[in-house]
């Protein structure tokens, strides 16, 4: 049904892209299938799990609730954008590694993007604020406490505050 394809221009992880998509295609499918960015996961079909969380113009969204066409002309960042090009982990990723904030790792990309957005808005969140802001991201493995600690670690170790812990 090529006639119904729509051209979208999305800046993804800093690169401009132009793709023809089906109008019904979800952003998460667009990222995974058309751009092979397989780090963004799908864990549900009712927008509950948050495994698909990405940043859209800097704000955390569940990419399974956004159509690819809605991202036209906008900027998307995925988990693949977090580490340096040589693979060095950023502060938040280090926090998850240091505080054992992941087990199977399937929820992790979504958690990281939700936490990126949280820390951008609130660089020093309390444990309660972290728990509340992650309400839309389910993890079946960790029991959450170590995720909360991971975010605290990142907050305490962010650039310029090294060595406080």
């Amino acid at each position, binding site marked *: 049904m090529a006639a119904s394809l729509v051209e979208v221009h999305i800046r993804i992880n800093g690169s401009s892209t132009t793709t023809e998509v089906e109008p019904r295609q979800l952003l998460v499918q667009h990222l995974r299938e058309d751009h092979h960015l397989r780090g963004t996961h799908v864990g549900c079909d*009712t927008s509950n799990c948050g495994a698909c969380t990405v940043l859209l113009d800097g704000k955390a969204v569940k990419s399974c609730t956004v159509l690819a066409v809605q991202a036209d002309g906008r900027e998307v960042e995925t988990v693949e954008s977090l580490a340096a090009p040589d693979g060095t982990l950023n502060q938040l990723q280090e926090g998850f590694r240091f505080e*054992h904030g992941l087990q199977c790792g399937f929820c992790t990309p979504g958690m990281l993007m939700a936490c990126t957005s949280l820390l951008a808005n609130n660089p020093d969140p309390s444990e309660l604020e972290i728990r509340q802001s992650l309400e839309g991201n389910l*993890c079946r*493995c960790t029991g959450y406490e170590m995720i909360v600690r991971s975010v605290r670690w990142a907050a305490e170790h962010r650039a310029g505050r090294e060595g406080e812990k």
Partner: protein
Amino acid sequence: MSVLGTSVRRIEDPRLLRGEGQYVDSLTDPLLDGSVRAHFVRSFLAHGQILGIDTSEALSMPGVTAVFTSADVDLVPAAPGGAGAPESMARPWLPAERVRFVGEPVAMVLAETSAQAADAAEMVFVDVDPLDPVVGIVAGLSDETLLFPAAGTNRNSRMDGGWDRFGPDRADDDSPLFEGCDLVVRRTIINQRLAGVSIEGRASAAVFLDGHLTQWISSQHAHGARSQIARAHGLSEEQLRVIVGDVGGGFGPKINPSPEDVLVGWAAGKVGRPVRWAETRSENLTSQSQGRAQLQHVAIGGTRDGRVLAFELDIRQDSGAYPLLGSSLPFFTRRMAGGPYDIERIRTRAESVVTNTVPIEAYRGAGRPEATAAIERAMDLFALEIDMDPAEVRRRNLIPAFDEPFKTDSGAVYDCGDFDSALRAVLAASDYEDWREKQRFRRENQWRRVLGVGVCTYVEITGSGPATEFARVVVTAGDDGSVTAELFTGASPHGQGLHTALAMIASETLGIPIGQIRVSHGDTSTVPSGGGTMGSRSLQMGGSAIRGAARDVLAMAKQAAAEELEAPIDDIEVCEDPPGLFRADTPERIVPWARILELASDAGLTESDTALPTLSVEDVYSTDGATYPFGAHVAVVEVDLDTGEVVLLKLFAGDDAGRILNPMLAEGQRHGGIAQGVSQALFESVLYDDQGNPITSTLADYAVPSAADLPDWDLVAMETPTPMNPLGAKGIGESGTIGSTPAVQSAVVDAVSHLGIDHMDMPLTSFRVWSALADPRSDISRKG
């Protein structure tokens, strides 16, 4: 300093944190280029006769490659999965005559894209003549409607429903069970049906080339999948390669491959193209195997001074639509019936029954949480009846500390334990008496938000033996004088951090830094056999195997280096920095691994077919028996008497899993386990309406807790090494789940016990608690 016992950070993490996890649906293997996508058409009725399936319209939809029904499937029929279930109850790959649960796959659509496959699946018309649905254990037992008329009954397991006369060894004891008891308390308890809900659902990808099938599968057990899939295809195990990469959570339902997984491989052969499948969450919640689902009758008898003399446990297990692993789970429940208590007389019986619901298999704990929940509820009821503190009643009945095997009257042989110390440690850590004081204060002052305190002591089974596990340790020199080790294990981790744990063990033995050790699992082309990851077995089995193989490599290395070091083998020691060997009395002269490998090569000890000198040893570790972790949990809850709302304030957990290899990993396992256990007590329940329609088929309906729903956990440390394996380790994957559920349930009941309530079934949602408060004698808390 030894690396063992330290919190080494995980070697698994960097990849996963960069979003590079190799989950089945994320694979980019070129073998899978040109794949078609599978989508299953599922039954919308719980029970019915299939009159016909019309695939013609679906076949004409865009992108569709094939539509298959049972008429096309030429796989070898599967045997029934439950021990001793009748042949007629075997599950078909796709049903030909009857559908038996909503969500059961009835046809398979292959198309170029997932969206096209899903669209076409909508156009497959399944004509079904409805039959009466059998929903719930009681309906199943009535045999009014049969799921398998040929079997003549819905009962399906070898367990014949007869009592073992007290314990298995007391068949000829003719005294009455409750002889000498001042009182006997009886109760019916529901251990509700739960869903595993790994965040990654089931997924498979397969390619059939030249009579060889390669299948990637999201599984807890690569080699189990290989044998089951090979059997279905009539292939030899050599014609089948199973690859398990990263797995996004298991929790039990991914132990066995599902019919959908098997059909993916089969379809790849039929259409001559690779096939990929990943289920949606609503498919997952209506067709992946589920867990628990027991109806239990307990009776506990003892003396007024708090001594329990006899316990009876009568189990009715819901098998779901087909008897699979779940039909056999009461075996573990019966074995563990007496828990950590020294009870003179225990008798149990069990029956499993098919119903028109999702089949039951293992879910975190698998048969043991059900046992703990039953005996712990019984202890509480007994305590309430004789008006004694529940912690005190437990203390009076615990098996005293033992380091020689202890056999219970229900037939378990515990390896070693110190249950009383565990309980005392957790009571102290929790300020138990202080909470009791606060509870009294609130009650006396008529607070509307009351406090409840729950206590659980438990013992469980891990690493069930007799069993074996495979390991291979390969040490290779680089051109540049470096050394690397590669470890192969038959365990199949999916989040436990086993790669890190195994690397620690090998590093400790060989002195090779963890950063130079790689771990592989789950590919049957490089790992010949394996027991997978289930029943909290991986570290004790896989770790012991790696330890054995690494020690054999070390022995070869010492042999090779002995001459150069001018030392008898017993005087040679391992150096970590730089990695190598030295003579005990000349620590400044180190022979590095690169040199050792050269020497080993000269001595003919190395592999002959590798470019660089390589020492390689395979080992199969075996064990005779299981290990029995134990512990105690205390939960504190606040209950709102006006709304029934429950808030979990505190959960104190002492989980003794023997020697701890990596405290950080152990903590993670406990946290995750506790969260799932708490969630059974407070939130989760798979529900069906009276027509067998699932009403918890999405994550909007099935209550998986978020970070906002749970508190921090208070862990109490305890280590009693087991003599059962060289690591001294017991399993830690399920303890948290087993201990926390009864503690939390107990705490909620305790909060309202002064109002005449002595039991409420789980999950203790505000509605259920409010209903019980509204009418303490009603059995509304039992429904669902």
